[in-house]
């Protein structure tokens, strides 16, 4: 009997292919939209998380000045100096590495190639704090740092511009006004989530930078890597206390520096993305609802058209429940077919979107099963009213219907 009902439903649907297709178009679009929104949203979240963790592992960035909101900018921020850095390294517990940095835009030249890039003076620990590997070559040696040797590490973008297919190791390039030997190339890191190219950079020993580029001893930012993820909160508080003390900030006054917790920024950004995903998913779910109303509409028309048929069935012994079931199964089959097509459309569209947006395609069978189940449920909910109307028909009236 169930098989007969199903076969009947499929036959009724095949009988009117175009109408059936138009009927379920709403469900197709709804299901596809829900899956696309959620999958792309999750991919974007994953991308942001990956980007931010690529900034460094358990990274805290200490910068001079207040960076909270537009109104809060204080007077010219006092930079840090190397004693501040040493104090952080010595006195803050549960940190793995500390790297002072100072940076400036400068033009780098090799042969007839040149590029304006961000020149960063720092130490060998910079790579540890940023969780950054070397493509080729080596990191700064202790002696080079101490002596302020003119050596540098190239970001992948800078290497590409200056050297193309040539081997940069051992070559001398000009950085600003000084000549500098290339000792290594950083591994490619790609774009950050803010859209800037992290590989467009050049690293040199901080002492070299201070003496030959900047002409002062300022440390613009300090990279601090906490020993474990759970330590960032504590480390941040400790750094804050320490720096307030060292910079003689009276109780009640605001900090004139900022400790950025990359993990926190990541959480904020992914949180925002997640909310957006949910919002878009909800909008998509509304379109699924609209699709359901479309099904109800057409099923009601179908019941009216088939009144005589229903009357005949009732007269020759169909029970109300059997007529109800017949129309309900038809609605469910219809909407499930819509769901199936929607899933296929969503997978194709999501694959295309993730490729163009360069985000990972996180295939989630859960959301697909949910959207599909929902399309079936739509059939039950919106098929019920027309089906009940069919089942409640008076056979005598229905038989007379033209």
């Amino acid at each position, binding site marked *: *009997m169930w098989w*007969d009902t199903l076969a009947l439903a499929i036959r009724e649907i095949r*009988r009117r292919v175009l109408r059936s297709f138009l009927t379920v178009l709403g469900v197709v679009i709804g299901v596809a939209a829900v899956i696309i929104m959620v999958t792309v949203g999750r991919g974007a979240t994953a991308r942001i998380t990956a980007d931010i963790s690529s900034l460094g592992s358990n990274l805290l960035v200490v910068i001079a000045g207040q960076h909270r909101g537009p109104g809060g900018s204080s007077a010219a921020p006092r930079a840090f100096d190397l004693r501040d850095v040493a104090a952080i390294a010595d006195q803050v517990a549960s940190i793995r590495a500390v790297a002072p940095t100072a940076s400036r835009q400068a033009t780098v030249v090799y042969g007839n190639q040149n590029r304006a890039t961000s020149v960063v003076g720092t130490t060998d620990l910079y790579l540890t704090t940023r969780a950054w590997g070397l493509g080729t070559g080596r990191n700064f040696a202790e002696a080079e740092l101490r002596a302020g040797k003119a050596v540098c590490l190239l970001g992948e973008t800078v290497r590409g511009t200056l050297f193309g297919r040539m081997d940069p190791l051992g070559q001398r390039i000009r950085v600003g006004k000084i000549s500098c030997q290339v000792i290594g190339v950083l591994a490619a890191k790609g774009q950050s989530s803010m859209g800037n190219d992290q590989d467009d950079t050049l690293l040199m020993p901080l002492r070299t930078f201070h003496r030959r580029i900047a002409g002062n001893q300022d440390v613009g930012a300090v990279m601090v890597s906490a020993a474990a993820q759970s330590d960032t909160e504590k480390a941040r508080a400790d750094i804050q206390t320490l720096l307030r003390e060292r910079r003689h900030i009276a109780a009640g006054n605001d900090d004139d520096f900022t400790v950025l917790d990359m993990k926190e920024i990541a959480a904020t950004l992914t949180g925002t993305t997640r909310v957006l995903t949910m919002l878009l998913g909800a909008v998509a779910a509304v379109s699924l609802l609209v699709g359901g109303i479309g099904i109800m509409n057409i099923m009601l028309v179908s019941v009216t058209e088939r009144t*005589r*048929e229903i*009357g*005949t*069935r*009732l*007269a*020759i*012994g*169909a*029970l*109300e*429940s*059997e007529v109800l079931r017949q129309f309900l199964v038809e609605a469910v089959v219809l909407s499930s077919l819509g769901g199936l097509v929607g899933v296929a459309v969503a997978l194709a569209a999501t694959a295309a979107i993730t490729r163009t947006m360069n985000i990972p395609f996180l295939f989630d069978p859960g959301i697909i099963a949910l959207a599909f189940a929902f399309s079936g449920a739509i059939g039950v909910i919106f098929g019920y009213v027309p089906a009940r109307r069919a089942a409640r028909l008076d*056979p*005598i009236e229905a*038989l007379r219907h033209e």
Partner: protein
Amino acid sequence: MSDARTGGAGAQALIRMRAITKVYGAGQAAMHALRGIDLAIHSGEFVAVMGPSGSGKSTCMNILGCLDTPSGGSYRFQEIEVPSLTRRQRALLRRHRFGFVFQGYNLLPRTTALENVELPLMYRGTPLRERRELALGALADVGLSGWEQHRPGELSGGQQQRVAIARAIVTAPAVLLADEPTGNLDSIRSHEVMELLRGFNRRSGVTIVMVTHEADMAAYAGRVVQFADGLVASDVRQAENA
């Protein structure tokens, strides 16, 4: 519903209506379709019901076929008091005891003759193989072997009505109710259909109650009941014309 129950008292009728009334509407606007019908039909009879439009014969047929309930009176079918049954019970009674033939054939459109005839068996839950066998047999009985896969639109009126008769008799019902079965047919097809009905009545003893306007169709029946103004005006047994 066994023979023991129906045949126990010998003269016990298959269908027994007593003082059946049917009123549509209420108060001033009340329309009395039936004003007290007394009718007994025995197993194996072939009854023609005649009467002008509005005489109540269609209403009476609907009540007889358990499609409608009377406003008053008693209707016993095989000793079952029909008016006290629920909608569902009446549907089950139709499924298992009645066959219906309508003036407009009422075949399912875009469905083959074979599937149309199988339909009542499907509702009975007959297994597919047996269903197919019985339906093929019924179509052969009405002379439509070879037309099984045709759809109603591809069949003539006479053929469609014969499919409808096959659908009505395939379940071997106790009663076949025919509502103007020849109303849409020309004279030659009408006589073919009547021959068919009388054949079934004689061979398998199915009780037939048929509404008709035409006297020469009523002539096939062994008994003619005339309705007028919601009452039985006359009830005559006749020699069936040969």
